[in-house]
């Protein structure tokens, strides 16, 4: 910087800072262009598309069973949930009945994914705010869950664990006992995380009153999932439009009061506890029977379209699938990713906050770029 530019240096013009796409805390390839006035953010422009792989167009050239593989790669932190959403949508198009045992196991897998996803969220969020140790602790528990999945379907990240009409394989022996043990461990560890963070004065100062959004505005702007519930709106697809076996279990939906980052944190922690509750109920009531329903050898839903949504850990994951009745591929495959919808609220949340809060807010929305970009 030469001396003769000092006049412009002390100008009160806005500073434009670019965060990403390679940045330690943007959780993937996300680019934020921030306009700062000193330390305050005046505006933020979110640039996505760095991980766009064209899953929607690819699906128009794959048959209905192969698309399960593609759905794994969207929200790769919680892959079985994407599988479930897709399979349920196709089953809705086919008006197919899924055996009860398969529905129970799907619920268990889905809730285990919610645990895994929230653990990653908690670890990365805490790490962004500075509490590095929580990240390692959460990943330690997530390893246990990934081991469970590896035992069930052979993969740790992209499971391909469901099929249209049920599941490809039944549970291995002894798996349910391991799941129970892991639920106990996770419940005990959540107490530890709370001790580290919930009453920690620094955590409270970093997350209270940061990114406040009211319930009405949240609904209008398209928030879904835990951020919406933290703003006081009692909306959860598992309760509103039950799918899989959720109608048969008793569980609560945590609702926040203020809609700030601290409430989003509390809501997700409570969801972890409720997930273990659901898994235990499912294991207790697991019926016998087949795990795959009567599926035609070649899946060809009759011509028509449908939209079906499930509650992924990040929010409402919706699939809009159009079948033309004759082809072995869908005519149009559209995913409505929760992270995409939540991310568009980020500029509104970030306005007026400091640069340090931007990182906290990206973390609190809980995005996975695979889902945002597809």
């Amino acid at each position: 910087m030469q001396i003769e530019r000092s006049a412009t240096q002390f100008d009160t013009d806005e500073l434009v800072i670019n965060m990403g796409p390679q940045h330690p805390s943007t959780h993937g390839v996300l680019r934020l262009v921030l306009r700062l006035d000193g330390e305050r953010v005046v505006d933020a422009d979110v640039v996505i598309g760095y991980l766009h792989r064209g899953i929607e167009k690819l699906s128009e050239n794959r048959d209905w069973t192969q698309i399960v593989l593609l759905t794994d790669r969207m929200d790769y932190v919680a892959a079985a949930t994407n599988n479930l959403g897709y399979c349920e949508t196709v089953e809705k198009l086919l008006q197919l009945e899924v055996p009860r045992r398969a529905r129970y196991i799907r619920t268990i897998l889905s809730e285990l994914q919610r645990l895994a996803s929230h653990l990653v969220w908690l670890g990365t969020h805490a790490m962004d705010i500075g509490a590095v140790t929580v990240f390692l602790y959460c990943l330690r528990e997530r390893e246990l869950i990934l081991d469970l999945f590896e035992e069930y379907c052979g993969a740790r990240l992209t499971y391909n664990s469901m099929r249209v009409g049920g599941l490809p394989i039944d549970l291995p022996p002894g798996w349910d006992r391991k799941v129970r043990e892991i639920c106990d461990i996770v419940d005990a560890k959540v107490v530890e995380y709370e001790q580290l963070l919930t009453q920690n004065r620094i955590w409270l100062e970093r997350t209270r009153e940061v990114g406040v959004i009211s319930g009405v505005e949240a609904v209008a702007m398209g928030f879904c999932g835990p951020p919406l519930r933290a703003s006081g709106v009692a909306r959860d697809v598992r309760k509103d439009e039950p799918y899989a076996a959720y109608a048969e279990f008793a569980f609560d939906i945590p609702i926040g009061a203020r809609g700030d980052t601290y409430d989003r944190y509390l809501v997700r922690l409570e969801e972890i506890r409720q997930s273990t509750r659901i898994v235990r109920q499912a294991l207790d009531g697991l019926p016998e029977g087949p795990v795959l329903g009567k599926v035609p050898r070649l899946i060809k839903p009759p011509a028509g379209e449908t939209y079906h949504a499930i509650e992924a850990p990040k929010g409402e994951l919706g699939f809009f699938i159009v079948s033309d009745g004759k082809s072995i591929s869908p005519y149009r495959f559209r995913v409505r990713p929760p992270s995409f919808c939540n991310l568009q609220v980020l500029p509104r949340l970030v306005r007026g906050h400091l640069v340090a809060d931007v990182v906290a807010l990206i973390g609190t929305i809980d995005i996975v770029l695979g889902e945002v970009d597809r």
Partner: protein
Amino acid sequence: MIDTVIVTLVQIAVLLVGLLAAVAYLVLLERKVQAWVQVRLGPMRVGYHGILQPVADILKLVIKEDITPARADKWIYTLSPIIVLVPALIVFAVIPFGTSVTLLGVTIPLYISDLNVGLLYITAVASLGVYGLILGGWSSNSKYPLLASLRASAQLISYEVAVTMTLVSMILMAGTLSMVGIVEAQRAFQLPFSGRTGLWFIFAQPVAFFIYFVGGLAETNRAPFDLPEAEQELVGGFHTEYSGMRFALFFLAEYANMIVISAVATTLFLGGWLRPFPNVAWLGFLDWVPGWAWFIVKTFAFLWVFLWVRATLPRYRYDQLMRLGWKFLIPLAIANVMVTAALVVLL
């Protein structure tokens, strides 16, 4: 006269070597302690359980390519790490590790110099380090380091006020600015309502200790006050553009500052080279441990708490950090000085 020069030179040599080795191994210790807290092991491969890791690190930093940004101010860019490191090292000239030791018939005092204004010297020299920080960020000619160095300098200056106030209370307690004098004052301290002598000042001045500890964390840019170098936000802070040996100097300077803060805290609050409970007679059997060993153990304990805090606590945001320094610590420190002054007069 020649032997005092030789003795001094030997002292300086031993101190520098020991200090640099201590700084290097402190880096390893931090990685190990953080790892153990985080349910993992830390460096394990280089040497037995990673004991040679600092050697590998220094070697790596020395052989790295020396990059200077195209439009950086070359002289200041090179000088800044030096300006940060040198004050951290020369502070040790007045820190007493013990009384003295006799080797080969020569009595060697375990401090390089007993300046009668030792504490003032420490405060003055330590503040010089801030210049290096600011100049480093500015001379990199890049947005992120500039922002970070501005933040860092504001943080350091604010917390220096609180820390210096604390030192004033200690001066009131001890009645002298000399570091050796302060330790002696702790040994000779008359407990008010009993006849015994000898008390670590941490028990007499717990508030001052607390302020000093928090201020020390902020002075060294350690968590929870490490925003200037938080990778998650500003990539590398003021040393983003530095690499190789220059970066190594910044790095060493940070850890050397930690040792400075710990050593000064040990001298002022934890009794320097005094054994625990110097006022309790039946614990006299502890005297077989030499004073400098006590000093090192206490400094080490202090450093351990530094590392522990880093592994546990989240990070303060910048405005919260400034608010804590100005609106909480400084009034508390001033109040502490006034109460101390009153008590010293009355008792």
